[in-house]
């Protein structure tokens, strides 16, 4: 396969004794996947950058210079609003005289938490539903495919806004999900939409796996459905689940930003912010030409999603079953 060139796999050196018989050290599928991932240079670099971003963001009070809602100096000491980057505020200040650099870090904290929790929720729900539908087939599978077909084809923002409106107007929901502008509400809302993509991916994977010989062998040995699912299908889908998780994180962060951009995001009342809210503010900074308010949040957002996308891409290449067949 020509495609394999893009992903160099070490073949045994014809001179060494490894090529005469078996490989000296046989590699487990996990090791092979890890090796392929490390060989994906962009993915490796992105992992390093992402880990750095995570450390930086997690250590927020140490790495930031001002509080999230703190002005760089009191307005009585002179104008502090919309200042271009200078030594007191590396990324400039916003319309309230707050340090943009610190606010990006605090915003990233919220956005990444929303992304992570949503992704975990979506992957748990999606794996459960997708796995069951793929394994059992029948009406469950049919309903899943029909429902997700329509939901995934509709514009995401429309679905989010309408579902949000529905949840907001049903009284008992608010006792579980809280205020429509809270982070909890947003995470649950994004999970309600986000699991569908994951379910379709896992369904496909399970459908493929359950026809394989080892599952047939297990069934012939009398294994129960539960055992087959948890001991055979699930461990063999871990790679795909990881890929789904990665893309779910980036999807959730983008969805949060989209919602915030249109004013449906988390409430910024107490000065709390998110990347989406910062990007929404950047729209107002365009006409007066406060370029720092536009460029820094935007570029940070692009770098963050690029890193996660590259990692997802690398993971997908690493666990792609097609590639595994090439190795044989």
């Amino acid at each position, binding site marked *: 396969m020509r495609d394999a*060139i893009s992903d160099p796999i070490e073949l045994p050196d014809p001179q060494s004794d490894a090529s005469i018989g078996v490989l000296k050290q046989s590699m487990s599928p996990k090791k092979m996947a890890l090796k392929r991932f490390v060989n994906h240079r962009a993915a490796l670099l992105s992992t390093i950058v992402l880990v750095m971003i995570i450390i930086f963001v997690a250590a927020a009070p140490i790495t930031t210079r001002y509080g999230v809602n703190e002005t760089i100096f009191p307005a009585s000491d002179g104008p502090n609003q919309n200042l271009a980057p200078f030594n007191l505020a590396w990324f400039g200040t916003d319309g309230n005289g707050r340090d943009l650099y610190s606010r990006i870090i605090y915003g990233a904290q919220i956005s990444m938490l929303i992304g992570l929790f949503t992704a975990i929720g979506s992957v748990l729900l999606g794996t459960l539903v997708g796995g069951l539908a793929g394994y059992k087939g029948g009406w469950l599978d049919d309903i899943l495919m*029909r429902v997700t077909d329509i939901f995934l084809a509709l514009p995401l923002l429309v679905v989010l806004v309408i579902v949000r409106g529905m949840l907001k107007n049903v009284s008992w929901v608010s006792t579980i999900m809280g205020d429509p502008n809270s982070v909890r509400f947003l995470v649950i809302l994004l999970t309600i939409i986000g699991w569908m993509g994951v379910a379709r991916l896992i369904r496909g994977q399970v459908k493929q796996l359950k026809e394989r010989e080892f599952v047939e062998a297990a069934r012939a040995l009398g294994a129960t459905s539960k055992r087959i699912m948890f001991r055979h299908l699930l461990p063999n889908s871990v790679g795909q689940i990881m890929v789904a998780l990665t893309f779910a994180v980036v999807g959730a962060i983008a969805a949060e930003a989209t919602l915030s951009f*249109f004013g449906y995001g988390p409430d910024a009342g107490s000065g709390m912010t998110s990347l989406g809210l910062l990007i929404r503010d950047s729209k107002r900074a365009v006409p007066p*030409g406060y370029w720092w308010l*536009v460029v820094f949040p935007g570029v940070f957002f692009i770098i963050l999603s690029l890193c996660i996308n590259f990692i997802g891409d690398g993971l997908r290449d690493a666990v792609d079953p097609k590639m595994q067949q090439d190795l044989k």
Partner: protein
Amino acid sequence: MLRFIVRRLLWAIPTLFIVTFVVYCALRLATNPLASYARANPRIAKQPEKMAQYIEENGLWPGITGYIRGYFLWLRGFLTGNWQVSIKGSRPVWPNLKDALINTLRLGIMASIVGISIGLALGIFAALKPGRLRDTAVNTGALIGFSIQPFISAVLLQLFFAVQWAKWFGEPLLPTSGMYPPGHTGFDPVLMLKYMILPVIVVSIQTVAAYSRYMRASLLDVLNSDYLRTARSKGISERRVLVKHALRNAMVPIVTLAALDVGAIVGGLIISEAIFEYPGMGMFFLTAESNGDFPELMPWMVIVTSSVILFNLLADLAYAWLDPRIRLD
């Protein structure tokens, strides 16, 4: 083939009814039309008999049976052309919706043509030399494109081409909002094109990224196939192999995907439209949603969902027609 088409068409009709019913219930819950009406007409809201009359006229009864009865009342009005008037301003809905639809189609079709053709070209370019520099460059570029959300590229482009450009060179290079300058009347294609450049770029970025990857994957699949080796081994030129055998077959899945994407255009440009204040379906939706305007949102959703269902059907048909290996029954 005919049987297949007829069967799929027959399936599409009940799907459409079920979907519109679900949308009806969802929208009634989400927008709460009665509350929106009371908000828009505070004086009428104080008169219970007038409100009761509004409920009866528009079928806004509560409860499950109320929703079902309301749906059929709405459906009859919709199909016979007696559409409910909008809550805000009590205007007929169709004239504005029609203009929005035409504007969105204009933008969407242009962006699709630009985006898909560039994407396909890049994908072919990459697939011809897999693993080489160009392949890596196209792949990396596609991932970068995926990571640039439309609202970010839109504000960055606005900042650069309008505000900063004006600072450096005296006047903005490209207009950043609307379809025509304020006060303009009549049809002026050159001016309109100028106003569409930035929205088209924003919408195309993700299209280019997606299609370059689809095309690359699809073409590589075909290039590695046995029948292509056969074609080569019978001695025809590489060019002929590529054009006649490889590209034609590689296009089969792409056509299907393109049909699905075109179906999603109608409602899918909300973000770019909102930022560039382009008076299309997206702006229509956002305005109607903020007013809780159920009579405006319902036809909007019907158009968007039927477009999705219709193009889903077309995609299936195209796939069956283009790929003779697919059995129709």
